[in-house]
């Protein structure tokens, strides 16, 4: 197992380097530093002198990959690739192009609000999905199964934006039960989290119930379930002790993949509910065309996804001993 983990960790290094190069090429080949300067300066300050000064002030005045004017190792280090992209590999995300604030500092500050919203949503959605899926799986073909499936498809078909706007309209504006949006640190935080968590949970139910129902149905029809029933075990014991345990393997192995969503937050939710998390940070940066932040968030997202995949592989080998990793 240890050898497997070490080998996978070694795979991560070239993957991250590849992602880093790809992100750099995508951002800088499509959008040159001159373009970035002009976008940041706006219509009124487009003269070449201002563009050059902006590039100099933001560290974009050097060549992209190779600095022919520099000497020695500086040919490589005095480049935009080294300064702005490669530095992300050792956790230096640089500074925002617009406000010059430290991106690393902002990521650290915003991770907690994102987790405060996304963790309860993730746990509540997982729990509700499993319970509902198990109930409808045992009643396959019944009216309640069909009604639930219909509702699930309906829930999946509605855009996430509608849940947010409707939630804000009914619970905050009409019934005045919760604040419309905002965020407070400390004990009063829950007041602002109730509505986004409710909205996030409801919007995540449809697809999850359908997926888990399929997983449970596969298990319910297996021989060991038939044997358990023949032995006269109560239905609840069969479901919770045997079916759930086996169906949880694919569910649990998917959990680490959610690391990305947990950490990066939900862009729409955070934006509409003014939660100072990473999702809102990314979407604001996109709107302001702050490419330094967008680049950092894309790279961070890739890193988290790679870590999630690694954890998923490890979980898989732990929860299912039949799987042998060579």
């Amino acid at each position, binding site marked *: 197992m240890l050898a497997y983990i070490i080998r996978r960790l070694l795979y991560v290094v070239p993957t991250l380097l590849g992602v880093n190069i790809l992100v750099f090429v995508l951002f800088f080949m499509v*959008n*040159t530093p001159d*373009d970035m300067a*002009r*976008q940041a*300066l706006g*219509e*009124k*300050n*487009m*003269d*070449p*002198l*201002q563009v050059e*000064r*902006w590039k*100099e*002030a*933001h*560290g974009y005045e050097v060549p992209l990959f190779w600095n022919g004017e520099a000497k020695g190792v500086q040919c490589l280090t005095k480049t935009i690739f080294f300064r702005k992209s490669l530095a992300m590999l050792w956790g230096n995300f640089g500074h925002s192009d617009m*406000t*010059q*604030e*430290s991106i690393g*500092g*902002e990521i650290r500050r915003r991770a907690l609000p994102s987790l405060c919203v996304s963790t309860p949503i993730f746990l509540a959605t997982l729990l509700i999905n499993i319970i509902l899926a198990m109930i409808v799986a045992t009643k396959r073909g019944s009216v309640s199964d069909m009604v639930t499936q219909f509702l699930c498809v309906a829930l999946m078909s509605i855009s996430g934006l509608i849940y947010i*706007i409707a939630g*804000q*309209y009914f619970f*905050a*504006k*009409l*019934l*005045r*039960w919760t604040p*419309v*949006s*905002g*965020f407070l640190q400390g004990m009063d935080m829950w007041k602002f989290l109730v509505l986004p968590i409710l909205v996030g949970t409801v919007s995540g139910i449809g697809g999850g119930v359908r997926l888990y129902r399929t997983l449970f149905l596969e298990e319910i029809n297996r021989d060991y379930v038939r044997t358990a029933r023949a032995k006269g075990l109560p239905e609840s014991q069969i479901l919770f002790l045997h079916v759930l345990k086996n169906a949880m393997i694919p569910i649990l192995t998917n959990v680490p993949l959610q690391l990305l969503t947990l950490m990066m937050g939900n862009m729409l939710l955070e*934006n*509409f*509910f*003014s939660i*100072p998390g990473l999702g*809102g*940070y990314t*979407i*604001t940066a996109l*709107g302001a065309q702050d490419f330094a932040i967008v680049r950092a968030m894309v790279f961070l997202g890739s890193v988290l996804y790679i870590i999630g995949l690694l954890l998923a592989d490890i979980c898989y080998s732990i929860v299912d001993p039949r799987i042998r990793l060579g």
Partner: protein
Amino acid sequence: MTRVEYVIHLKEGVKYQPHPCFAKEADGTPSYKGVKSSEIAGIKSIASFPKQDSRIMTAEDFKVALTRLCDTRLSSPIYSTFLSFITGMDECSEAIKAEVARLEEEQQKRGLNPERYSVLPDYRKIPLKGIEIVDDKTFKVIMPRKYPQALYWMSLHFFSPVPYEALEFFAEPAIVDAGFAFKNWPIGTGPYMMTDCNLRDFLTLKANPNFRDDFYHWDGSAEDKAAGLMADEGQKMPFIKQIRFQFERESIPVWIKFLQGYYDTSGIPSDMYDAAVNMETNGDMGLSPEMAEKGMQMISSVSATSFYLGFNMLDPVIGGMDPKQKKLRQAISIVLDYQEYIDIFMNGRGVMSQSILAPGIYGCQEGKEGVNPFTCRWDEESQKIVRLDVERAKQLMVEAGYPNGVGPDGKPLVLHYDASGSGSQSKTGFLWMREKLSKLGIVLEERLTDLNRFRDKVNKGDWQMLMTGWVADYPDPENFLFLFASENGVVASQGGGSNKTNYSSPEFDKVFHQLESMNNGPERMELIKKALRIIQEDAPCCWGYHPKSLVLTHGWLKNYKPHHMAKTFKKCLRIDTEARNAFRRKYNQPILWPGYIGILVVYACGLLLIWRKKD
């Protein structure tokens, strides 16, 4: 004239806000010089530093501010403008560059990374010919030419005094490590000081205890008096003790919070327009009865902004100064009825332009006087400006050599509209334009590109028609008319100018250069009229519209009158907190009965299930 001096006398006793940069120990050394990170751990706001002090503003602070703008590392957006009228900015910039290089070398030797900890040149000692300190309270700004608009530039925040102690404080490595930066924590002598700075979430300003004696005074009209804008005459400002700016990313939550009384003012989201605005029978806009009942007010004002459809004067078809080409542009300008555009696409929130000058700017004539005779006429019956008939446009097309839109080659005239946006608003706007031009037989095609390519096209003059605009920097006609000066042509100046249409007319240039450095008066007014008439006839643009902003305020917010130039009116605002609290109590009581019904339904369902199971 080669040297113009402005002598500036500072008011006596103007003090800075309390700030840790001024705090000193008994021996006179700054309290935070060489401070260690552990000593300031946990401090999140400049206002939370335990040691604070202040001092009187001096002339040297203005020298520091102006010299600092020459530092290339700042990338100040105002540098190019100041360079054009303040002597010695470029030389100063070079001197700073050399000094920065020297300091960085020294710093590297000390083992400090200059990229992380920026070096600080002593701006007090670096010479700048454009500023001369006479004494502590007096300084001169020296210019190579007469430029009256300099006063407007000097009233902008770029010219605010900067105490050198503040720059030293923010250059301390521990202060940098703690995340404090001068650009995010401004220091000043004004009515408010920043106490929370969270750029992407919120900002908090608190009343500056050292603010000078400044008393409310308003030379308003009878209308202003009736609106209660003079009720606080003679009272000391500021009235509000704390202002919090919340960064909201979406318009609907802002609107709901405004209705709930958590925001004092709000714009009107387009989706909520019908709920907030009542169109009167005469076309005027009024507040809806529901809003008026809650004590809200609607304040509308025309902003000092011009939007217009530009024609590329370098284009062989649509551009050029030949009479035929002028007539083609005039014909197009007649059929593009921007009053209709305002009514359809902007809910009436705009004023149709007759020239580049926005209402309120000196030289902008309104009503009958201001009619652009080449595209519009005054309608006595409605007492409004209306577009000339389409027949006149068709006649102009014939004179331009395009009868029914057909050119000398027998083919329909095809024009191209260049744009960078692909949103629904721009698409419908284009369709409206195409439909209007089809009345003249002109075929309009759209050429969409991303913003960067679009800017490249503008810089190279590779376009025919585009929509553009200008927001005034200061309330002077020069700030609009310079958009048509030959030397500012985007192509001619290789992207350095703002004359996007690349219009070039020696006649206009002559008039413009006469009026640009003149003080307002009858002579200047005549020249402005002449300049406007030249560009109205040459039609390098189809004059579009000046947007109107609508702001809703709650009744408890007093002394509010928007100003599109000055941002310093916060000190005049007053809030009736009792009225605000009463409103919040009245309109934010939770409605609980649906919740009780929900609980009952769940309870009943539970009972039903138990009963069925028992049965």
